[in-house]
């Protein structure tokens, strides 16, 4: 029944957001900048998008960020959260749209890569506009770097970090999704440790 599928979808979104929250605890140091950590919490949203559609993926992004705000609220997250909403959101929507067209492995790879690239690129304008805003609020008399300086700052600092994070997120998502896709395809018949339906094993 459609109702039942909707309920299950909502719950899956919630659980994916939960995984996102848990993944915030796993941090990897950036190569070359070991003090700065990246987290893997963008992965569940991407998986949600591929498995359940772009709206579902966006919902995961939103929920994860709300959870994050509940647990670790600090003013710097006023920047971090919108940034993540944009970055992860774009990644998820693009990947989901491309993959949903035809659900093949190639399309998944294509979708995820495109999503990651566009997302990283979108951080350029995003940072360009949000960073000055942030500075105006917290450092009102400090001259805001504009134009070229700002652009260079973004290209040299923020872009590489975003690119690396996106790369790792994308690769891990693809690998994970490849393995668990069989569970998701089973349309609700996946149960552990009871018997699996025959259809799933033929997938």
């Amino acid at each position, binding site marked *: 029944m459609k109702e039942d599928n909707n309920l299950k979808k909502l719950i899956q979104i919630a659980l994916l957001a939960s995984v996102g929250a848990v993944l915030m605890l796993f941090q990897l140091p950036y190569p070359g900048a070991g003090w700065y950590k990246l987290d893997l919490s963008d992965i569940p949203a991407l998986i949600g998008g591929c498995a359940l559609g772009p709206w579902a993926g966006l919902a995961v992004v939103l929920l994860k960020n709300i959870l994050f705000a509940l647990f670790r609220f600090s003013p710097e997250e006023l920047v971090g959260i919108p940034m993540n909403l944009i970055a992860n959101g774009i990644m998820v929507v693009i990947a989901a749209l491309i993959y949903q067209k035809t659900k093949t492995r190639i399309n998944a790879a294509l979708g995820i890569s495109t999503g990651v690239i566009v997302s990283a690129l979108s951080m350029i304008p995003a940072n360009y506009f949000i960073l000055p805003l942030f500075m105006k609020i917290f450092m009102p008399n400090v001259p805001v770097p504009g134009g070229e300086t700002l652009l260079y700052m973004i290209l040299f600092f923020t872009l590489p970090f975003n690119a690396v994070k996106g790369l790792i997120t994308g690769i891990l998502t693809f690998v994970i999704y*490849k*393995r*668990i896709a*069989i*569970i998701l395809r089973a349309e609700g018949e*996946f*149960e*552990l*440790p*009871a*018997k*699996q339906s025959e259809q*799933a*094993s033929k*997938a």
Partner: protein
Amino acid sequence: MSNNELTNTSDTPILRTENLCHVYQPGTPFEFAALNNVNIEIKKGEMAGIIGPTGSGKSTLVQHFNGLLKPTSGRVLVENQDINKREKKKRDKKSKDSEKPVCFKVGLVFQFPEYQLFEETVFEDIAFGPRNMELSPDEVNKRVYEAMEWMKIDAENMKDRSPFSLSGGEMRRVALAGVLAMQPSVLVLDEPTAGLDPRGCSELRDILRRLHSELNITLIMITHEMQEIARMVDHLIIMNKGEVYADGAPAEIFSNKEKIEALELGIPPAMELLNRLQQKGFNLKTNITGMEEAADEILKALK
């Protein structure tokens, strides 16, 4: 087959703990002494069972056997080697983190092991353990196929399938194969038959028995199933509140009924029956745990 005979054992314990203590979160308000001066000995080739109420420290104890947990004080010795002792010889930087081989002698299988599956194919998943041991690809191959044979996994059909496409019972066997492929001398299993239907249970028990008798693997099982204990175990350890409550042969331990009931643990059904019959006036021995032997004993008493 009498399950009270010790088969294939020698005198040196293959696994031994000396005054093992483990405290969780020491120095915090959540400090908790999970293990208190635990001294046990497991002989090579034994089939041992560990039982006890929840929170008695069973899981904590077995996690010390393969070095997953380090003792707060005391020692854990596998084949007479302290597994936590740092090796004195110089190690080069690359092997700084390499797992000491003695840790691989004890294989630990957690409850619902099917949840540890993660690879793309059954083959790859079983190969994970051996690969972590840095064995040659040929050796890895060999071990994977051997393990599959032991666990009655049809290699040709299954090796390239996704582990997530299997039934629960099959997944469990793949998970076990993954640990078996590491060829541990001691296999520790936490509730091996949890969640299996009766047929699955008995199939698994058969496999474990064969591993024990044919490969001479020392088996240690944490279980709640009294029947399992009755049927399979030579050496029983009862844990309670982080200490060893009882340690010996099952028949002896179970004959001390009050002691068992104090912990709200049951005794094997066969024994329970014998006890009740004895109370009703039948003249029979009650220190028997196995079903068949109990049946024989009852028949004798009826003559």
